[in-house]
């Protein structure tokens, strides 16, 4: 690249001509030709032309926002704006606009928005601010209540134990019946089944009853033979019966571990273990706790007693409260909380119980928790209180989700059975996993709710607000981003902002657009004013850009509707022509005075890679200058579709497109066909000989087919090197012909006139 020998090398004449043209078109060459006086003349001319327009253009934002403000107030548009993120952004924009320029109506709009934001941030319960709750007083009765709950649960457990005793006799009967049934299996399977079915009725285990009935019917209808029946009886039905017995025990004798179940029912523990897995999958039973290391199972009841649910909520709530209090209160809550958690576990083990006795005490406990929460909320500063409220609700929400997901699905399976590697999950570890899962869910829930309510946030802000360490916050964010719960929403002070996916309301979009444009317009107006005071050649680009801002803002405003009508429609219409012609004038002048461009000589362009320059030029200027100085003509009757031109072209300007111009096959002269290579001519003749109608449409193929196609030349890329013409193997001089065109001045004129 840094070869010094450029001077020694020759530029090919074609390339030189082309580069020359690039410079002409790009205005690079004319620089020296335009005297300074001429440049000043042009600038003066522009100033003169723009002057009558500026007044109206400058006045247009102010007029517009007057009407906008009026429309907003009239339609109470801000009622529909509740996204605080959008509001804050809009306020920022308007503050900037107001600061930079003096537009009264913008100040009015800004006030409106601020009021709206305030009203949104205000807490509903804030009126009774003065009434501060004395936490100590509120919490005082808690220990007594908790003790009481414990006692009541103790009674429940006693009752349950008694029930269990009564049930023991029934269980014995069941066991005996089962043994008898088993003995009968060999001699009289039908009778055995009948007896077992009777037992099944006692267990009230639906699956057993259904299976037994099905097998019996199958036997009767001779769908299963003796042997199969025997097998089903010994295996499927017996296993279902075991399950029935387990179900009976868990229903009447409370929750049990597998070992306890084995002791009680006399069924081998490993058989039980296997039977139980299916029961968990069927959601007949669930794991409710741990006894040492063994999981404790209980029947799944259709409805969990209301009081158990209340207890769970209360425990959750108190947990949250305990984080926000200090000293004695904290100790008190902590000890009560521990007791309550134990009680909750006991309740869960009990499953069903007579909830009336517990209802009252629990109701009081709950009231205390509520009051304590309330107390903390009122006591803390606004932001903190809100955060706490969020935390509490997030916790409850996450807890509900968690329970559904884990408790009913995978957890018990992992503890009970083994994974594919034959490994067993340690129940302790299981609890740890559950804990950390719950904790994670809680934290994520909090973050989500915060973002949802307060608008996009960075990891840093979230860490600050939630008190979760920032690296954890970050992990959560990534996780939620991956789950598509969050999206990226720009950045703030270099930190990435995360937001929940939102669909702004129409009112919100309106506010956002209007405030964006307000800020842009004020800046653009100031810039134009400064530039016009002393118009210099190098400012011409900025002038054009700022005018363009006006034009674009106007276009956007045309889309703003309030109450179904476009705001200030007539104003926008009248100003349109003026803005647009000012823009055109600026661009035109810019094209005429190239003094801002660097000085380039043709020699500098020796190594320029034409297509890449083109691309760059196009992306910078928005249009590409005409590069080709010739057109390549293609004669289909001579083309063999061989792609040689495409392969040979050094600039990738010529391509064989997969389009067959079949209609033209019918236009070729006999003479032309005669000259073609023999098979090519034969092909056309055969097609014509078979045709029963003359086609009108070209055939568009879905991909390249060797030997067929239509040649296309991209004149933007063609450097007219004639390689394709020389390479073409078609008859005579080939299918391609290059026609040089030298009407450059015309092209330049077009650019100057702003057409290109």
């Amino acid at each position: 690249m840094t070869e010094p020998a450029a001077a020694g090398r020759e530029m090919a004449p074609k390339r030189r001509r082309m580069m020359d043209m690039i410079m002409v078109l790009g205005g690079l060459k004319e620089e020296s030709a335009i005297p300074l006086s001429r440049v000043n003349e042009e600038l003066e001319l522009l100033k003169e032309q723009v002057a009558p327009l500026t007044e109206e253009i400058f006045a247009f934002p102010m007029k517009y926002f007057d009407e906008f403000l009026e429309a907003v107030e009239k339609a109470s548009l801000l009622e529909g704006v509740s996204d605080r993120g959008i509001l804050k952004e809009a306020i920022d924009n308007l503050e900037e606009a107001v600061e930079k320029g003096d537009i009264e109506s913008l100040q009015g709009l800004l006030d409106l928005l601020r009021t709206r934001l305030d009203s949104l941030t205000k807490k509903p319960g804030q009126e009774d601010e003065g009434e501060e709750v004395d936490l100590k007083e509120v919490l005082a009765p808690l220990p007594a209540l908790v003790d009481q709950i414990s006692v009541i649960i103790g009674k429940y457990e006693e009752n349950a134990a008694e029930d269990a005793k009564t049930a023991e006799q029934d269980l014995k009967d069941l066991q005996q019946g089962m043994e008898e049934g088993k003995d009968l299996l060999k001699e009289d399977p039908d009778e055995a089944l009948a007896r077992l079915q009777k037992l099944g009725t006692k267990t009230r285990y639906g699956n057993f009853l259904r299976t037994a009935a099905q097998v019996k019917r199958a036997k009767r209808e001779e769908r299963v033979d003796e042997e199969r029946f025997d097998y089903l009886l010994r295996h499927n039905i017996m296993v279902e019966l075991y399950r029935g017995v387990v179900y009976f025990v868990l229903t009447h004798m409370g929750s049990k571990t597998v070992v306890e179940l084995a002791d009680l029912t006399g069924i081998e523990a490993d058989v039980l273990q296997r039977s139980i897995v299916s029961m968990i999958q069927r959601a007949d039973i669930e794991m409710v706790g741990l006894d040492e290391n063994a999981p404790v199972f209980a029947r799944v009841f259709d409805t969990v007693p209301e009081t158990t649910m209340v207890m769970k909520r209360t425990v959750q709530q108190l947990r949250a409260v305990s984080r926000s209090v200090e000293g004695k209160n904290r100790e008190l809550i902590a000890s009560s909380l521990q007791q309550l958690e134990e009680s909750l576990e006991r309740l869960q083990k009990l499953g069903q119980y007579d909830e009336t006795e517990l209802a009252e005490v629990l109701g009081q406990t709950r009231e205390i928790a509520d009051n304590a929460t309330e107390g903390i909320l009122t006591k803390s500063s606004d932001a903190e209180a809100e955060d706490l409220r969020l935390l509490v609700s997030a916790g409850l929400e996450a807890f509900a989700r968690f329970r559904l997901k884990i408790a009913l699905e995978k957890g018990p399976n992992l503890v009970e059975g083994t994974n594919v590697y034959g490994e067993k999950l340690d129940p302790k570890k299981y609890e740890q996993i559950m804990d950390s899962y719950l904790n994670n869910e809680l934290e994520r829930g909090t973050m989500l709710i915060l973002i949802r309510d307060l608008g996009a946030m960075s990891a840093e802000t979230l860490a600050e607000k939630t008190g979760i360490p920032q690296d954890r916050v970050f992990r959560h964010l990534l996780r939620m981003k991956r789950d598509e719960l969050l999206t990226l929403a720009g950045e703030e002070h270099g930190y990435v902002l995360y937001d929940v996916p939102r669909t702004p309301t129409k009112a919100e979009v309106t506010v956002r657009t209007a405030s964006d444009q307000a800020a842009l317009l004020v800046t653009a107006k100031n810039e134009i004013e400064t530039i016009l005071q002393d118009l210099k050649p190098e400012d011409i680009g900025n002038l054009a850009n700022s005018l363009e801002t006006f034009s674009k803002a106007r276009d956007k405003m045309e889309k703003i509707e309030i109450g179904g009508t476009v705001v200030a429609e007539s104003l926008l219409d009248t100003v349109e022509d003026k803005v647009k012609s000012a823009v055109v004038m600026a661009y035109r002048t810019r094209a005429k005075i190239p003094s801002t461009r660097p000085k380039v000589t043709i020699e500098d362009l020796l190594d320029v890679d034409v297509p890449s320059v083109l691309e760059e030029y196009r992306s910078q200027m928005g249009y590409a200058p005409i590069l080709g100085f010739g057109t390549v003509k293609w004669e289909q009757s001579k083309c063999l579709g061989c792609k040689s031109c495409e392969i040979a072209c050094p600039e990738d300007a010529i391509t064989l497109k997969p389009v067959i111009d079949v209609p033209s096959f019918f236009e070729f002269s006999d003479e032309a066909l005669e000259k073609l290579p023999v098979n090519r001519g034969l092909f056309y003749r055969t097609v014509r000989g078979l045709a029963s109608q003359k086609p009108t449409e070209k055939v568009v193929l879905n991909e390249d087919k060797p030997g067929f196609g239509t040649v296309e030349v991209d004149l933007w890329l063609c450097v007219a090197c004639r390689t394709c013409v020389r390479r073409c193997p078609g008859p005579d001089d080939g299918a391609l012909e290059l026609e040089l065109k030298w009407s450059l001045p015309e092209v330049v004129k077009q650019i100057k006139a702003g057409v290109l």
Partner: protein
Amino acid sequence: MSENRSPVLLCTCGDTLSLDYELLNKELSQYEGVKSVTVHGTVCQREGLEAIKHLVQENDGRLVIAACTSQKIQMRIDNFLKEEGVDSSQVQYVNIREHSAWVHDDVGDATEKSLAMIKGAVRLASLSEPFLDETKEIASHVTVVGGGIAGIESALSLSNLGYHVTLLEKEDELGGHVKHLPVVAPTGKSGKEVLSGRLESIDRDDNIEVHKNTTVRFFDGEMGNFTVHFVDTDGTEKDLETSGIVLANGFSEFKPTAMEEYRYGRNPDVLTQFELSCMLSDGELHRPSDDEPVKEIIMVQCVGSRSEDYKRDCSKLCCTFAIDNALEVLKRHPEARVRIVYMDIRVPFENEMIYKESREKGVDYIRGRVSRVWEENGETHVKVYDSLLDKYLEFAPDLLVLSSAILPAEGLNELSETLGFDIEDDGHVKELYGKLRRLETRRRGVIAVGGVTRPQFVFEAVTDAQAGALVIHNELQEGQIEKLARGAVLNVEDCVGCSLCAQQCPRGVPLMIEETENPEDEDEKLEFKAAIDTLNCHACGVCQSLCPSAATQLNFLTNEQLWAQIEGTLEGAGPDNPITLCFHCEECAVSTMDIVGTRKMKYPANTRFIPVPCAGRVSIIDILKGFEHGASTVMIASCETDRCHMGGTGNEIAQAQIDVARDILSAIGWKGERVDMFRMYSAEPDRFITAIQEMVKRAKELGPTPVHQGTAGKWMEVSR
């Protein structure tokens, strides 16, 4: 041109075929191109063969045999005639058994179909020319590029087969990667032990000339006449004449300097797996930074492999190599601690054993990824995310070993430009056909063995190399290529230089030679002419199908021959007797059809078959000729996608002809559905049945063609 007349030999397959031989005999005897008709019971037996010999001798080599599938009898007849010194190149075959008598119930219909197809073959035969054995003397010399295990093994095998071999190695020692492996699973031997015997043999072998420290620049020429340009040990550029080339460039290990997170290249204690192998095989295990002993190693799998940015696929070897090295480390230092961080462990073949062994020996497997590597107080620290525990673990190992991806050898792309072999998307050399033509490349006389085609274990590379030597031997035949010159023949006069043949030939046989006298003169045309070595040709006919000037044609199936056959075969086709014409390739399609016949599955008899060597031989003109002569539908039966036996693209060329024909027919007032292409697979004979039934159904449903109706060519009147 007057057509020659041929004798016809009809076989009754021991009087088992339900065909009306009387009618065939009568009709054929009256047919213009037929000289005589002979009905024989067992053409394939001794008497039959004798009869064939006499008929061929008496008729200037011409004979049309209508019997069972040529796949069965042609080889036998060819061998017999060769032994008897009779040229069999002009004998034509018509399958009236599997393609007619066995698949149609109606004797009349089957006879009619057989008659038409025999007539077609008679027309074809009338235009045939004899072609004789050609001999080409070439140097019995092969060049092996790359002196790793594959290169060494193929050099030795080729030398055993009687070739002179030049072995080019870019390093100063033979042995490639294998030399540095401390242990080669599952043998338990070290790489040096694996190599030692072979290296001794090479030293002793006078037929093998080894050049070390050489780099290959580029190649010229074609099979039998390659020139290798290379820079020799002393730095001089040399040319080497050779007849065949074995690419055994092996692979290169990915150096993950670009993956900055691993600190490779910045921290001396971060190595690649192969660098660890080198350390282990060259001496003592130590920390490169300060030569201290190593107590703790972390190995990271899939560095660069299975990653969109570097290598998309699994590199196959790294798991095994990592385990090899881990075991070697533990063998020398039982107290050392080795942890392998993996995504999933993939140890193919019996390497599973060493995986189990490593678990027993206490290698720690951590499923997850490395999240950070950094240095602190002169120690290397690694943070690993364990995805099973959902935990971050932190270690301070003495060595961090990266099992980096196995990439294609460097410079393959450059070599492919002059040597013309194909490159896979992943950069490895592409083999001609994965199932039946492994090791062969697109370019004839160039084979690729060992890691150059895909990551391979040592024993795989050895097998590859031995097989590759045999493939080369098959091609070069010890320097005396004697072959029937059956293939494309180019008439240079007619060539217009369009290069379609060179662009599309599946084997890269045609070469374009520039004939411009003065390229600097901008007014002069850039002229090219193709050059085709018929002995190098695989005779698929793709070039012929595409050639606009009929300059290149198969010498056993010229355009005129095929068109005459189409005309003969379609005799009697018309609106009342709608005929489906089926061009089928003599690879997958014919075996599918033969199996249909052998299983006596049935399909309609108003079908006519024309065999072509490869579906790519059928040009759009051939398809249109079919319609011109009265076919109601035309189909091509070819090999399955990516299974073209001619190098992969013959069937796609045929597809292009079909697609264009369909569109053009639709445009000129025909129904495009009259033409279609079907891909076959001999294990699924049903496919042919479905295809042919579909086309017969279309022939019936679409009714008479414009040719039948007499409206073809009347577009002037119609459009007015």
